[in-house]
């Protein structure tokens, strides 16, 4: 070991975020060159007569909301359990169903019934994610396997709850939640992301959740011997994910004004896991950065919007997305980094280093 003095160099920090930041930068730059008008922001009047901001940037940030929220929860579960919950889309649909069902139980949507619906929604999703959490923490089942159960039957449960294909709720309150609040030109879902982000930030500030989660994720045996309850921490991560999923489900449902168990939050589990990975987090658990995952979510949405703006057929977007994903994760791969560094060194200091190693001999 080196005898270097203590506290000289601070590692970590921006390091993990470098790749996603660069990726986002390249995307931004690409769009700037392709079409400077891409970034124009305008004001328009929507169907309900509200003034709203329009433009690609606004729409990217707006439509990535559900993904960003779920990615935050997913990061915690990933960190604590070393695996991912692939049932978030299905459970989010259940959340939507409960939301609609509760609202429909009353003749009119008021703030009171809305609050009740939100609470009911959170309670039910927490119930479902706790089911996952119990399998993972108590029965020690791999997260992906445990959540495969709800992944395969969650949407059916959602359908069974509402009892019809696409029940609708029509109310200015709901459309305000899904689109814009009269008088505020910024889409409401964005506030949802900010709210969830702030709450999580507050939790990290006021509790030791980060340290505990990382400890459990890295070495749960050691964490237990230091008085941490790994089962509790894992359950907690699933509960927090549950709340995130509930919020995302409510936003998604409000946006559409209906819950469609076949399409609501479809494939969001895959995108959320991607967001976590693009954000530089280790899918095997341990240390994590939620900001990375949020960044990852916006990169994914930015990519989709860019492709759409380039008139790529929406059904083909997946293929392009795949390529960009591979490029990003390759850039983050330590092996690739090592190889590139070696190559760089050979080009730059090739001669000098060879001489130095000869000298040692």
């Amino acid at each position, binding site marked *: 070991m080196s005898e270097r003095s203590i506290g000289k160099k601070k590692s970590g920090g921006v390091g993990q975020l470098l790749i996603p930041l660069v990726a986002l930068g390249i995307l931004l730059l690409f769009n700037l060159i392709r079409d400077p008008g891409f970034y124009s922001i305008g004001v328009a009047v929507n169907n309900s007569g509200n003034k709203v901001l329009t433009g690609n940037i606004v729409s990217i940030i707006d439509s990535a909301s559900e993904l960003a929220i779920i990615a935050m929860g997913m990061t915690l579960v990933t960190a604590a359990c070393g695996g*991912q919950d692939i049932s978030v889309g299905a459970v989010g649909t259940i959340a939507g169903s409960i939301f609609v069902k509760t609202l429909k139980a009353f003749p009119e949507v008021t703030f009171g019934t809305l609050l009740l619906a939100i609470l009911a929604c959170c309670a039910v999703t927490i119930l479902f994610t706790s089911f996952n959490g119990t*399998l993972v923490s108590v*029965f*020690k*089942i*791999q997260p*992906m*396997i*445990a959540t*495969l*159960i*709800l*992944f*395969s*039957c*969650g*949407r*059916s*449960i959602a*359908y*069974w709850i509402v009892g019809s294909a696409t029940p609708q709720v029509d109310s200015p309150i709901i459309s305000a939640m899904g689109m814009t609040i009269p008088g505020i030109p910024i889409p409401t879902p964005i506030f949802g992301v900010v709210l969830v982000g702030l709450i999580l930030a507050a939790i990290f500030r006021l509790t030791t959740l980060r340290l505990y989660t990382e400890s459990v994720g890295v070495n749960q045996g050691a964490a237990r011997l230091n008085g941490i309850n790994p089962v509790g921490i894992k359950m907690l991560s699933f509960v927090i994910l549950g709340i995130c999923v509930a919020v995302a489900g409510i936003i998604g449902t409000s946006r559409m004004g209906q819950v469609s168990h076949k399409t609501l939050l479809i494939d969001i589990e*895959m995108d959320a*896991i*991607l967001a976590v*990975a693009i954000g530089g987090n280790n*899918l*095997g658990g341990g240390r994590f950065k939620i900001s990375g995952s949020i960044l990852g979510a916006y990169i994914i949405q930015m990519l989709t919007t860019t492709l759409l703006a380039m008139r790529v*057929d929406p*059904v*083909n*977007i*997946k*293929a*392009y*997305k*795949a*390529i960009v*994903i*591979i490029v990003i*994760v*390759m850039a983050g*791969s*330590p*092996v*690739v980094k090592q190889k590139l560094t070696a190559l760089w060194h050979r080009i730059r200091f090739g001669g000098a280093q060879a001489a130095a190693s000869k000298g040692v001999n």
Partner: protein
Amino acid sequence: MSVKQIGKTRREPLTDSQLLMTITIGIFAVMYAAAMIFMGGGFLRTQQFFDLLNDNAALIIISCALTIVMIGGGINISVGGVIGLTVMACALYLNGTGIQDSTLGIVVTFLLALGIGLAFGVLQGFLISYLDIQPFIVTLAGMFLSRGLTTMLSVNPVKVTHEGFLALVKNRLAIPWLGYTAKNGNLIPAKLEIGAIVALVVVVLVYLMLRYMKLGRHIYALGGNQQSALMLGINVKRTRFISYVISGLLSGLAGFVFLMHKPAGNASVAMRSEMDAIAASIIGGTLLTGGVGNVIGTFFGTMILATIQKIIALSPLNESWWQEMANGAMLGLFILLQSVILGNRGKHRKADLQTVQKG
């Protein structure tokens, strides 16, 4: 330490994977017997069982593919997408050949199917093994890519019109003595499709590979403890790479088999079948953590899923959401069962160890 006698005749206790497999086969037998008793009719005929094979040949093949990578401690969720892409590409190629009954056209189509699978296998295997990127992400990208390419080829369904292929597909292996006598007195033999035979051959080959080939044992070692495998002189990277190449090849083959069963391509072919394949592997006793699993168990895992499907299709509950619920419940049951059984065994082992140390 007590020095236990090295007993030559003593039978070893079942290993984890043998135990889990035995349970799976047992449950399948009980389930099928129950269906015979309570549902009667079709279930009393061999054809019903053969139909399970005929309808699920592609699923059986990709489940084998999944079992291989899962034993090696990996995952591959692109298999369904590769089936979709292969089916679409082959259907378009067959229709485009012009010569409607050429055998060559069919052979080339077959090679095309394997080629697509191989390409995905090699690409994904390279990224996962040599660049050390997380398999879930790589194969997720593979899934996106294959689905995207499928819709690029054609958004609309493509029906195969190639007569030679359609004729080939109609071939059945008829086994008279397993058949039954219809009401009009005719003997109707039990029929097995080519795809089902291919699937069974794949199961046997994969079993032999995993059990008796160096490659197979290296895959187990890799899943058991990667670091140890490396220290034991196993080329870990190459082994992992090959396991993904095989899974890619099998996915391509599954695509061809799928096309033989249903000669038409469309964007939603084999949608989410990767999850069914994972479920089948798990039900068959393969652990996602790697090192434990058996392709025979996987075969019965697929058969369990197929039987549930059949039972529900024949029952008054025939709605897709009942189907999904039943699948979920079955999966949950198996997962819990495995967790409890393995947990208990772990405890016994610990106790065993202590008595050995004591003695």
